[in-house]
């Protein structure tokens, strides 16, 4: 449980953030300059908010009113920095063990062999940071933070300095950590695809304020969010599970509370829970069920919200069963089809809009 309620003023920038989240991965989402790093720094004990409290799993780390401000070394917060920040004078092994050696044997729950295996670091142990690739550095940085036996792991844009292939690699390592170690992660990013793939609970920051807190599916589908976060990739998340793979047609079928989605064959096993991100511009609406059409996914839905109508494009939110999907239409189409609240529509989603990398493996929950 991470409970943050802080305010801080720095020049013209006023930070005022309040959220409580209890999830395997909490996504801290917002455009750059929104105050994300200030918030994770405050949790780690770097920089002091002028007011408020910070609690992690019931431990009070900061409480301005009571004069509590634990120094970073006593907070037990693992911090993976954007740039890795490995110690250049130590080899990988010494970097990994730096934090572990600062903990008493009884505090060492996460053992080094486990971390080395989990992050695939065996071959790197004798190397110096300067000889590592960006992805390797980040893996070592994650391992080093974990071995300091943190109560929560903070990851501040850990993929920012990496190329696309390395990003995917690190993302899957983060998923392994979530599935195999019981350490909550606060994952900071301005990239909606990373947040979609990883976060269970999303905290959205804009200009130093919390603008939304909630389950990933609920928060990321909100129509007012792109304006706040600056992303033009408006979309929504559908939580589903794999029901079958069709080897002949090379399709996989996902079932969610509201219907089925056909997608190009994905790797996930039958029964596995996945999270599909559907971009608003990949969704079309129709008033009658279309015939003889290449689009594989046609779903029944009801219009539940219509976004700002002053520009040429309009985002329309449609509820399908328990799921929300957003469609980005021209204003012309909205008027032509007479889209209004409560209207029954058919939602058209191209299967190819849902390729493998838009999926995240949702946490296997009981």
């Amino acid at each position: 449980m991470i409970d943050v309620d802080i305010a801080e003023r720095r020049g013209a920038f006023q930070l005022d953030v309040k959220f409580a989240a209890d999830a395997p991965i909490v996504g801290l989402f917002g455009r750059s300059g929104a105050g994300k790093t200030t918030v994770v720094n405050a949790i780690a004990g770097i920089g002091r908010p002028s007011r408020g409290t910070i609690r992690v799993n019931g431990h009070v780390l900061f409480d301005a009113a009571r004069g509590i401000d634990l120094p970073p070394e006593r907070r037990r917060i693992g911090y993976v920095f954007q740039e890795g920040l490995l110690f250049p004078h130590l080899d990988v092994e010494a970097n990994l063990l730096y934090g572990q050696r600062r903990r008493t044997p009884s505090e060492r729950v996460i053992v080094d062999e486990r971390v080395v295996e989990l992050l695939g670091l065996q071959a790197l142990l004798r190397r110096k940071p300067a000889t590592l690739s960006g992805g390797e550095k980040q893996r070592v940085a994650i391992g080093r933070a974990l071995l300091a036996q943190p109560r929560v792991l903070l990851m501040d844009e850990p993929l920012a300095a990496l190329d696309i292939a390395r990003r995917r690699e690190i993302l899957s390592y983060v998923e392994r950590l979530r599935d195999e170690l019981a350490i909550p992660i606060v994952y900071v990013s301005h990239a909606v695809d990373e947040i979609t793939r990883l976060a269970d609970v999303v905290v959205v920051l804009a200009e130093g304020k919390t603008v939304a807190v909630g389950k990933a599916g609920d928060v990321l589908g909100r129509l007012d969010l792109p304006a706040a976060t600056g992303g033009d990739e408006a979309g929504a998340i559908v939580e589903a599970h794999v029901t079958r793979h069709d080897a002949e047609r090379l399709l996989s079928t996902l079932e969610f509370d509201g219907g089925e989605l056909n997608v190009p064959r994905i790797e996930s096993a039958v029964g596995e829970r996945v999270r599909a991100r559907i971009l608003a511009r990949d969704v079309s609406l129709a008033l009658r069920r279309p015939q003889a059409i290449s689009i594989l996914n046609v779903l029944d839905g009801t219009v539940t919200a219509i976004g700002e109508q002053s520009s040429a494009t309009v985002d329309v939110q449609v509820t399908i069963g328990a799921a929300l999907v957003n469609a980005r239409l021209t204003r012309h189409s909205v008027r032509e089809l007479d889209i209004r609240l409560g209207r029954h529509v058919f939602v058209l989603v191209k299967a190819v809009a849902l390729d493998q990398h838009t999926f995240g493996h949702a946490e296997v929950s009981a």
Partner: protein
Amino acid sequence: MLSPDEWQVLALSVRVALVSVACSLPVAVLVALVLARLDFPGKTLVDAIVHLPLVLPPVVVGFGLLVLFGKRGPIGSVLDAWFGFTFAFRWTGAALAAALMGFPLMVRAIRLSIEAVDRRLETAARTLGGSPAFVFTSVTLPLALPGIVTGTLLSFARGLGEFGATITFVSNIPGETRTLPLAIYTFTQVPGGDAQALRLSVIAVVVSTLALAASEWLTRRARAGR
């Protein structure tokens, strides 16, 4: 190869320079750290005082030491009365003079290297559970090592060559305070002493070159370590 007298001069010079460096190094690291990391009123003044030996005539420094640390000086008399310890006209006084003259060079080099250490690495070390003191010894100092080596060498070389402050403070006593430069100077003052002065000058060149080579090697090792 060397005569007993020459050995004595050489051994004394190296001892004076080594002791001066060994005693001033911890102080210099502390002062460098304070100047590099802290902001306080009067910082400019402290900085100026540290640099004073660099700009003052060495004789003035030696005279100042004589006034303060002489047997009847305000500090010298206290040291003598309480600890029975005197700097005046002893090799320890020569080491003190050498330390003082080399101090600004040492502080400068160390300060620059501490300022070059990425402070975010120290922050990272704190989040990993390191106390400020532990972080300083395990991250800051090792990363500043090249500058510490350079500063130590500069100060050692300065101590080996120190003349004005030494001769003013502790005079030119054979076997006690007559270091290489003082011995060379003495030979130039006697008829037919040029050959002796030349021999000692060659020794000075050799010792200084060795010190330079040693520091190069240490610096390279420290850099290769990352």
